[in-house]
């Protein structure tokens, strides 16, 4: 390679032949130096021994739409476990012939999420639209109006429950976290210490213990006969937990703000709330999009911890399916399916955040 480039006329503008084309790419990226060549060969070997067997298991020797008997004598994957149990995995114990209702609610949710992506639509009217959508989704899930049979929330489960806990958990945790972060910066000692204590306390315990407390300890303090819905309690625990982490991330963004921005806002006569809302938060929150999204993604996955307080979220319905003797032993297939669902959601979040970051980038 060196020989080649030395022979080149210095006035030429084309790169040396060896660095273009597929061979050039392979050379510069995979085999530049003995160490990299060794690494490349090692990785190739690992791929060679792992990928073909997986492909054979997942696609060649597998069955897709059979009953459980057909799965007994094959070497490959029994994907049939998914279509055969799909409705239970997705909807849990929601009454079988009413499952179109959570399905419709989820479709509305997804449509709303996609519709809200576009920043040009972020107006007051979008908030009203969400209000209407929420009421419709609530009615669909719960029923109780003429034409819709009531369904107890204890029968809710599967994917709708996971989406409910995470979408509303995260959507409420974010503003709460912002308020906590602002409180922690407050000049008023009482507010400041309250926020510090809250944040440190919550961050000092695992989510599981908060969920336990919400389901075991919290009801002890309620008067006789009063119960708070289990989903609501889990939801509150998730919000409280996530908000504390969001608060610390947002605080980092606030500290990264230039003092001059506060001064310019003050000099115009803007009051505290206007300064925060119009000047500081839009910039600080933009800075912390990447760490916020990390927290939101991990909070989304953490909603699966609600299994320990006996809520049938997506993961729990999958587990239950696998405890059916007919389908026992096909857990790999079922968990891969659930992992895919989680992955699609998380990928959507991180993808969207990256786009948002680009759109909000004004210092070109």
């Amino acid at each position, binding site marked *: 390679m060196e020989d080649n480039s030395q022979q080149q006329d210095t006035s030429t503008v084309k790169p040396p032949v060896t660095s273009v084309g597929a061979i050039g790419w392979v050379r510069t990226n995979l085999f530049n130096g003995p160490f990299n060549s060794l690494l490349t060969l090692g990785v190739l070997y690992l791929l060679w021994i792992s990928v073909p067997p997986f492909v054979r298991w997942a696609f060649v020797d597998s069955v897709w739409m059979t009953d459980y008997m057909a799965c007994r004598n094959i070497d490959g994957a029994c994907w049939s476990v998914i279509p055969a149990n799909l409705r239970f995995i997705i909807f849990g114990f929601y009454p079988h012939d009413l499952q179109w209702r959570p399905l419709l609610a989820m479709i509305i949710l997804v449509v709303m999420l996609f519709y809200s992506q576009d920043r040009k639509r972020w107006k007051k009217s979008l908030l009203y639209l969400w209000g209407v959508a929420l009421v419709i989704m609530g009615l669909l899930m719960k029923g109780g109006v003429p034409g819709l049979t009531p369904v107890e929330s204890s029968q809710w489960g599967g994917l709708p429950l996971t989406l409910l806990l995470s979408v509303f958990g995260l959507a409420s945790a974010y503003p709460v976290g912002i308020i906590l972060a602002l409180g922690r910066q407050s000049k008023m000692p009482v507010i400041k210490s309250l926020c510090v204590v809250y944040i440190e306390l919550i961050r000092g315990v695992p989510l599981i213990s908060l969920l336990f407390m919400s389901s075991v300890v919290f009801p002890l303090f309620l008067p006789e006969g009063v119960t708070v819905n289990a989903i609501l309690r889990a939801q509150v625990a998730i919000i409280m937990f996530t908000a504390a982490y969001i608060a610390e991330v947002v605080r980092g963004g606030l500290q990264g703000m230039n003092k001059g921005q506060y001064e310019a806002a*003050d000099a115009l006569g803007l009051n505290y709330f206007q300064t925060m809302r119009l000047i500081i938060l839009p910039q600080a929150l933009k800075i912390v999009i990447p760490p916020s999204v990390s927290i939101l993604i991990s909070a989304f996955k953490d909603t699966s911890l609600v299994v320990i307080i006996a809520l049938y979220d997506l993961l729990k319905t999958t587990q239950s399916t696998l405890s059916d003797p007919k389908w026992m032993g096909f857990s790999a297939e079922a968990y891969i399916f659930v992992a895919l669902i989680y992955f699609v959601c998380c990928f959507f979040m991180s993808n969207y955040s990256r786009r948002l970051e680009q759109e909000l980038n004004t210092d070109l």
Partner: protein
Amino acid sequence: MNENTQTANIEVEQNSDIIQITDMHKWYGDFHVLKNITLQVKKQERIVICGPSGSGKSTLIRCINRLEEHQKGKIVVDGIELTNDLKNIEKIRAEVGMVFQHFNLFPHLTILDNLTLGPIWVRKTPRAEAEDTAMYYLEKVRIAEQAKKYPGQLSGGQQQRVAIARSLCMKPNVMLFDEPTSALDPEMVKEVLDVMISLANDGMTMIVVSHEMGFARSVAHRVLFMDYGEIVEGNTPQAFFDNPQHDRTKLFLSQILD
């Protein structure tokens, strides 16, 4: 040392004081940063403050719109005394425009939005009217074609002119400038000074912290010299530059006019 500032001989249209600072002191912790400041500024008067770095020039003008709090003495702006009353502070800040050394434009907003923000949220001006005003002042600082851009896309001189226009949109009675040209590349200083000169010609009351002595000579009614937190002397530009009274002033002028 304050006699000079009080007896300054200037011609202004009205002789009412728009800013009155009496026996004002300020400390940062134990550090006595402003000592016994007494200063009257008349309507339409233009004052240039100079002095060595760290002498308290910025602190003084920042006390006038309460970006800094003074601990002793009295500051009255436009008939309102500066106390801890938040309503008064916000009222005064809306009346007093400020231009910073580092521009401090809002980078997430377009130039136009930078200009309309104050009028819309503080003055409650309808958006259309605020935008008309904004375009008027952008024309005035000769930068109207950049209205839809973001601050990060403009040069330093352009940004500072936008910052001046942003203050003007609030229709202030007084403009404070804290070293408006000292963060600029040399070739951009003039475009900003030109805007300030045209502002002076329109009769704006201005307090300018600056070491641009040419500007001080041609525009100021009075030049003040500060050192160690005190106003050492103040006089008409002519007298100040040609016949400085104090040794400290002479030393400073000899250094800066090199």
